[in-house]
């Protein structure tokens, strides 16, 4: 098998990898903010629920969460899910998992802003919402970018776990080609794909960091 055919086939799997990546970020970044607010809520019940959520999501393997999301409808509720449920299940599992990590990153960012700024804003007549959106958030965004980049890059590589419920993303395709060709080259080629993609992700995040280098 030529390297070109192999790359073309890997590219097909890569499309699935990118889909998982994009959709996960699209939903987990905002969900993480909601969880972070819950974690810092004035209401004790919401705070405890958010804490338990984060604790479970971080404390159990992503692989198990994928299995639970996909198989629970049948094993718990006896609902028959079609084979079309595989992909949504992967996305749901990744989103709820990554939202927990993002929530803690956001919390670290938000709590790093000195209390004095809130007091000053209050004196200047800003409402609570205004204070957050106009003063706190712009600073939080730039502070959380490096750890968010970390998580994002981890996510690219975690996508290979989607095969737990038979979504054949790039690494699975690489293993299948490797088995048929009895060769290790497809795995290395997949590594190149991952590396280049992460390079693009990291460069994009660096660009964002430059864009947000205000207040200096």
């Amino acid at each position, binding site marked *: 098998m030529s390297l070109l055919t192999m790359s073309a086939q890997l590219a097909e799997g890569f499309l699935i990898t*990118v889909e998982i990546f*994009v*959709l996960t970020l699209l939903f987990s970044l905002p969900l993480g903010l909601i969880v972070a607010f819950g974690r810092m809520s004035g209401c004790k019940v919401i705070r405890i629920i958010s804490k338990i959520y984060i604790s479970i999501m971080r404390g159990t393997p992503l692989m198990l969460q994928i299995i639970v999301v996909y198989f629970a409808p049948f094993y718990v509720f006896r609902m028959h899910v079609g*084979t*079309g449920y595989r*992909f949504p299940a992967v996305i749901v599992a990744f989103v709820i998992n990554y939202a927990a990590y993002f929530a803690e990153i956001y919390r670290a960012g938000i709590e790093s802003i000195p209390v004095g700024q809130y007091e000053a804003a209050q004196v200047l007549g800003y409402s609570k919402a205004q204070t957050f959106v106009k003063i706190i958030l712009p600073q939080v965004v730039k502070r959380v970018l490096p750890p968010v980049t970390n998580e994002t890059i981890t996510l690219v590589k975690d996508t290979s776990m989607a095969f737990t419920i038979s979504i054949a993303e790039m690494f699975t395709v690489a293993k299948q080609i490797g*088995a*048929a060709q009895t060769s290790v080259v497809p795995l290395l080629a997949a590594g190149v794909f991952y590396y280049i993609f992460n390079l693009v992700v990291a460069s994009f995040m660096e660009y964002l960091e430059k864009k947000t280098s205000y207040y200096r």
Partner: protein
Amino acid sequence: MKRVLVALLAISMAAGVLTGCGSKGSDKTFTVGFDAEFPPYGYRDDNGEYVGFDLDLAAEVCKRQGWELVKQPIDWDAKDMELSSGAIDCIWNGFTMNGREDAYTWTEPYVDNSQVFVVAAASGVQNKEELAGKVVAVQKDSSALAALNDEENSDNIALRDSFAQLIEYADYNTAFMDLEQGAVDAVAIDIGVAQYQIAQREAGKFVMLQGEDNKLAVEQYAVGFLKGNDELRDTVQKTLDEMAADGTFTQIAEKWGLTDSVCLGK
């Protein structure tokens, strides 16, 4: 920045559409679950298509029944969950029935399979007794592993205990890579897969231990359905019998070089 976001959104939506429209409407689909890293029974060919002896058989059954065949590669660890949740209709993938007789509803066996040892030709190992004190590789949850752990077979247990170590691998490709670099001394494996691996790799590098005495276990492949799904099993069995009677089955076996091991209709 905004443009980038819009582009990302567009990509993700297009991607969603692509995956969402995977299933076409048809009267009846027949979803075969298989491990796509198991040549020659089910694997990925040079064109990226899922092919193999078992998939060809399944395709022929579907053709005769007017079903639409769905080839669903699965994670072997999740096969039971896939089957009982109805995500797949059967497991058709060099699936050993021995030891699992009561766990599934089976067709008649169609392949006589045995487990063999593959060693590096340079090692000079001739029979399985010489593997004492050596490191042996096996695929996790495979029939070779089951044979080595068969408590009722004292010979196999003694053999296993004579190994320095028995290592379980996620797939045979990794096991063979380890055999090639000398980290393990032998691989315990299904004969059909062993032949494929030896043929694909550098000629003369690996050999199978010859002779009936060196075989680990004799076992049979059949198609596994969800326990109690007799209706679907009966339909498939009937079609397979017809295929055996009119010679189609033998033709397909010839195509995959498995004439020596098939047993349906014999």
